[in-house]
């Protein structure tokens, strides 16, 4: 059903910069935000409103394409299950691996019999009640393998994997069935977010070989994906990141095998993470060699490219800028590229981050120039955060409040990330200068539906609370009504015409104003011209 324009549900779409017209740059920087804003660790990691507010402020200071901040995403589930965390004075909380929740079968049984209150356990309520959780568009969780590490400790889990597989499978099944699937479901119901992203740094090379990950971890990622699909949510696990420390050990074959693991953990979508390793030194040709088969098939490969945390801290600026330029030159033109500043070290100089952002926004301006060397890069000089904050806090906070009002929840957020850039398209502006159209994507099993409007050469997407009356009384030119799962299969062209007709006849799929819907498809196709 490509006539309506394919609605992608992948990470690349969520991480894109919407209508800004350049490659997006985001940051994973809880440590740095805390350090920069001089907020003690305990309130920063236990008061998510504070975390989000400070993160938003730092995000604006650096001109990032999303809020900075974030939290210890590897700890929350373990803490909610009763695991002990160490809250440092100045450091992010960590699981106390000296006292693992599971040491043997008996412990596992005890945990399985424990009733988990997903609305109220540990810091779960903070995730559910924080505006920032919705703004991210994603349900964040700790992936099955990393959660199992949190429950047992890495050495004991590996020992179980190699010498007591029954225990290993018991722990992994518990992680997926009893903890993650219900926790992600609660997040989806509360926030309306449609993408689940699992953090899985423990499952990476050289912690494990790609074969070990494929055999022992991927089946559980896929099991989780299947379970979550039942309630309309797509989960993706960031499993298989290649982070070999010794450059002399770099091996394209192992890299490609680890990419296979990533894709198998990403619902089969070609989405690659080049995040934790020494990507400023690894040869990028090895990545292009891998993505060639997808490109030949006309598939868009999403790449999230990380700037090495240590490079970012130690500099120099020229090397950071060169690294970003190198990524954009290699992937900016024929991949869906996002830059991420990976886990920015606490005491990283701010000028390093300003340089990274300026380089991304300058070299990453669409369409990407043929020769990046011809582009002049101006790195802004900004006052230190403390001074900048005194002068700008009230203005920025007011701006953030305004932006929050325009927040697009659920499907609307996802659509905006993909469709927003059409507003930069000249042809669209000209051809649809006098047009007025509206479309409703009604996801019947989700908290929010999405309303797309085209008026005077501008496209907008808004979320609509899925209460019966609001939806029923809406007058639109075209609409689709079905469950989230069916919607993505339908818009992604994943169901046959016969099956589509059958679903329409049985009322599972309702489409109105087909002609106008095709017009929307025409609009979106302008993006690929």
């Amino acid at each position, binding site marked *: 059903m490509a006539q309506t324009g394919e609605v992608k549900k992948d990470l690349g779409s969520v991480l894109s910069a919407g209508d800004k017209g350049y490659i997006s740059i985001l940051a994973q920087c809880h*440590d*740095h935000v*805390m*350090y920069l804003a001089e907020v003690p*660790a305990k309130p920063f990691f236990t008061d998510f409103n504070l975390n989000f507010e400070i993160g938003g402020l730092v995000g604006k200071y650096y001109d990032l394409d999303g809020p900075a901040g974030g939290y210890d995403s590897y700890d929350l589930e373990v803490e909610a299950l009763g695991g002990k965390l*160490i809250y*440092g*004075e*100045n*450091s*992010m909380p*960590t*699981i*106390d*691996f*000296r006292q693992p929740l599971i040491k043997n079968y008996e412990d596992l049984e005890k945990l399985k019999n424990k009733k988990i209150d997903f609305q109220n356990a540990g810091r779960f309520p903070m995730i559910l009640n924080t505006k920032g959780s919705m703004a991210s568009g994603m349900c964040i969780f700790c992936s099955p393998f990393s959660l199992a590490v949190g429950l047992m*400790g*890495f*050495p004991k889990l*590996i*020992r179980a*994997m*190699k010498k007591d597989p029954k225990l290993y499978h018991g722990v992994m099944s518990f992680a997926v069935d009893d903890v993650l699937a219900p926790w992600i479901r609660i997040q989806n119901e509360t926030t309306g977010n449609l993408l689940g992203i699992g953090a899985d740094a423990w499952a990476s*090379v*050289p*912690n*494990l*070989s790609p074969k*070990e990950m494929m055999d022992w971890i991927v089946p559980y990622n896929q099991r989780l994906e299947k379970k979550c699909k039942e309630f309309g949510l797509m989960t993706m696990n960031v499993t298989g990141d290649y982070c070999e*420390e*010794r450059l002399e*050990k770099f*091996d394209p074959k*192992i890299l490609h095998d680890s990419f296979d693991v990533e894709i198998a953990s990403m619902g089969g979508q070609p989405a690659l993470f080049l995040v934790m390793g020494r990507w400023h030194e690894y040869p990028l040709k090895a990545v292009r060699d891998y993505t060639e088969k997808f490109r030949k098939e006309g598939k868009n490969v999403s790449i999230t490219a990380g700037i090495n*945390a*240590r490079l970012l*801290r*130690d500099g120099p600026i020229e090397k950071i800028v060169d690294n970003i330029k190198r990524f954009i030159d290699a992937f900016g033109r024929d991949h869906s590229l996002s830059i991420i500043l990976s*886990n*920015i*070290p*606490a*005491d990283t100089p701010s000028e390093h981050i300003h340089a990274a952002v300026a380089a991304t926004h300058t070299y990453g301006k669409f369409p990407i120039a043929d020769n990046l060397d011809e582009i002049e890069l101006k790195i802004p000089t900004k006052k230190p955060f403390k001074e900048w904050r005194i002068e700008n806090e009230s203005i920025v906070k007011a701006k953030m409040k305004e932006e929050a009002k325009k927040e697009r929840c659920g499907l609307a957020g996802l659509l905006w990330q993909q469709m927003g850039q059409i507003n930069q398209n000249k042809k669209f502006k000209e051809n649809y200068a006098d047009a007025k159209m509206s479309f409703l994507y009604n996801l019947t099993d989700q908290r929010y539906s999405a309303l797309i409007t085209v008026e005077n050469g501008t496209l907008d997407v808004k979320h609509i609370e899925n209460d019966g009356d609001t939806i029923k009384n809406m007058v639109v030119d075209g609409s689709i009504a079905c469950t989230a799962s069916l919607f993505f299969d339908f818009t992604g062209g994943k169901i046959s015409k016969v099956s589509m007709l059958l679903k329409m006849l049985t009322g599972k799929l309702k489409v109105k104003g087909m002609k106008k819907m095709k017009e929307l498809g025409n609009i979106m196709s302008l993006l690929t011209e």
Partner: protein
Amino acid sequence: MTNLKILEDLKKAVLEGDDDIAQELAQKALEQDIEPMIIVNQGIIPGIQEAGELWKQNEYFHTDIILCAEAFRLAMEIIEPKLSAGERGSSGKIIIGTVAGDMHNLGKIMVNATLRGGGFEVIDLGEDVSKETFIQTIKEEKPDILGLGCYMTTTMLEMKEIVKQLENEGLRNSVKVLIGGVPCTQEFADEIKADAWGKDAFDAVEKAKEVMG
């Protein structure tokens, strides 16, 4: 079973991470009156050394090394009490620990094994070790090297404080400082005036030997 066969099997058990077998064979070797130092040098250490080679060749991953380290530890647990004082830690004495606020121990477990395999006497203070505990233990044990590990960029800064404290206490010249862990770099080691940075467990032994001269 011949002595040679026992030592070969012991090496294989350490290499393959068969901890129960490694412990059993170490015991058997003692019962067959093989010199403890020979058991260590011809059975246990070659196992961990070969694991290091396989690591460098991308044949081994952390999953293999962690099991190998455990087999090494259990075999050494049998043999170590039988070694004379002079035979233990002939390469030097090293205190290791993960700094305050940091609970990660994967790297330290591996470093513990590789250092011992490299002939060092290792005193492992565990995880979340305070600055005061490091300083007090240095005063009591007088090690040649202090090995500091961290996993987070915030706890990494604690290393700086420990080195400063060593200076304040007048201990800096009596102990070499070796650092390791995901966020560390040679630049950071230079910045905090550490003597060396080990990029992984096997590199840590090489660096420890280097700083010992």
